[in-house]
């Protein structure tokens, strides 16, 4: 029993490190499918974190949330996105607007920024610094992925990463929101992905590509 307790504690402290690694890999990813699988991996790490919280806090609600995160973010959304990529038949390469080395540098700077921002707050309240910094880093890099990528699908992935960050921030500061709110957020997310998926099809059908930088010509 002690061993499980120890494992739960270790999961919470060390998973932040792996989250940062997935962020860096996402910035360096060259293919849409790689990015989607990385997102799935990231969600799996967050699921482990929710389970660790559920175990240490002994709350049944958190187990339900963990099951929902797993079903939705690790399995359902990534497979839906992969199916979308397959159906859209767009080229597999990402075509980012900046090179992957620069993207990783920017992501690294964002991680450092989130650590420096979080440090004074984490020192006063007794919140694990690593996890909170990872949450802020996820929010920042999610936003960065959305602005630096050209493909519509990659912007969906960026939004999902951002949402993961918000979820993690809620988890680390308040040990999770009430179950009703979580369910609402998940439903919102599912609807959002659904609408964005439909939109991706519409963009492809109208313009025969998914490059959002070319959408500017429509103005006026």
């Amino acid at each position: 029993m002690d061993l499980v307790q120890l494992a739960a504690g270790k999961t919470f402290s060390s998973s932040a490190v792996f989250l940062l690694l997935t962020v860096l890999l996402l910035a360096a990813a060259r293919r849409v499918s790689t990015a989607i699988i990385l997102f799935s991996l990231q969600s799996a790490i967050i699921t482990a974190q929710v389970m660790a919280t559920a175990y240490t806090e002994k709350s049944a609600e958190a187990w339900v949330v963990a099951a929902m995160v797993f079903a939705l973010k690790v399995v359902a959304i990534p497979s839906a996105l992969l199916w979308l990529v397959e159906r859209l038949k767009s080229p597999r390469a990402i075509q980012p607007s900046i090179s992957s080395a620069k993207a990783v540098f920017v992501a690294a700077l964002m991680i450092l920024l989130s650590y420096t921002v979080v440090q004074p707050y984490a020192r006063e309240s007794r919140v694990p610094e690593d996890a909170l910094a990872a949450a802020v880093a996820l929010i920042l890099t999610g936003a960065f992925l959305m602005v630096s990528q050209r493909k519509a699908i990659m912007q969906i992935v960026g939004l999902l990463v951002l949402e993961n960050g918000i979820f993690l921030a809620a988890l680390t500061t308040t040990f999770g929101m009430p179950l009703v709110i979580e369910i609402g957020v998940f439903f919102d997310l599912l609807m959002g992905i659904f609408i964005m998926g439909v939109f991706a099809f519409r963009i492809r059908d109208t313009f025969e590509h998914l490059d959002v930088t070319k959408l500017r010509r429509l103005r006026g």
Partner: protein
Amino acid sequence: MTMLIHFLQALMIVFGAPLLRGVVSKMKARIQRRQGASIWRPYADLGKLFRKEDLVPPLASPVFRAAPRGVFCATTVAVLLIPVFRPAALLGGPGDFVLLVSLLALARFCLVLGGMDGGGAFGGMGGSREALVSALAEAPFLLGLTAVSILARSTQLARIVDWTLRQNFFDISAVHILALSTLAMVAIAETGRIPVDNPTTHLELTMIHEAMVLEHSGPSLAFLEWANSVKLGLIMSLLIGLFFPWGMAAEPSLLAIALAVAAYLVKMLALALILALVESSIAKMRMYAVPDFLGVASATGVLAVVFTVFGGR
């Protein structure tokens, strides 16, 4: 006794390196559903080359024949710095990781000189490519090693390994993961494996290492090939020592050493399998994508060094 062990561990890398290469190519062949050559094949190749005549192009200077020997000597001396069975090495006292990196750089300098002295067009081309890759790989190499040396509060590889050995395996630190990913990318570039360079191709567009050794023959070529496999063994042992040293013999007793040898062989086989899997599943990069790849390594290296500030562990 300890001196003997330190000497033996260096000898094992130098003389086991061709076997390692044979094992990796056998694994690659099996993964690709081919029979593959015997794992002892590199020794037969070296033996054949050592018996052959050393042909020198008419315009080449004495540098042409001296360069391969220089490459081999620099690489072998670098091996003396690597802790393998024990957290100590023959040159562990006076030498630190900067010496290791500079010895590898010296080896590469000799290699480029030898390639250019042959007078062929490919030698110069391969030399300039090698210089580009090594110049870009050196910064992340030093950054990754600096990060772990800050944690261990020592620049000597043996002390770093000794420090890591005393840590708990489950206390995963961000610095270690970042440094490991940096050094793994550097290792691929340094040893000239896929996706940076392909050691089995002679395609003009892509070859780096093979272009430089194209003019060499006989014993010179044997020294170059041998040095190349020694370098692969050296860098793999370095990664094992820095990041997975558990199982090394803390005290020089016979039983502990035997266990350390067994653990080292298992870890080496696992790493060879990973290398074979990566090489079989990834396509070679375009030459122009290599700076980008090493830029990613530099970014994670910088992050690893800066992360040592945040509490260390």
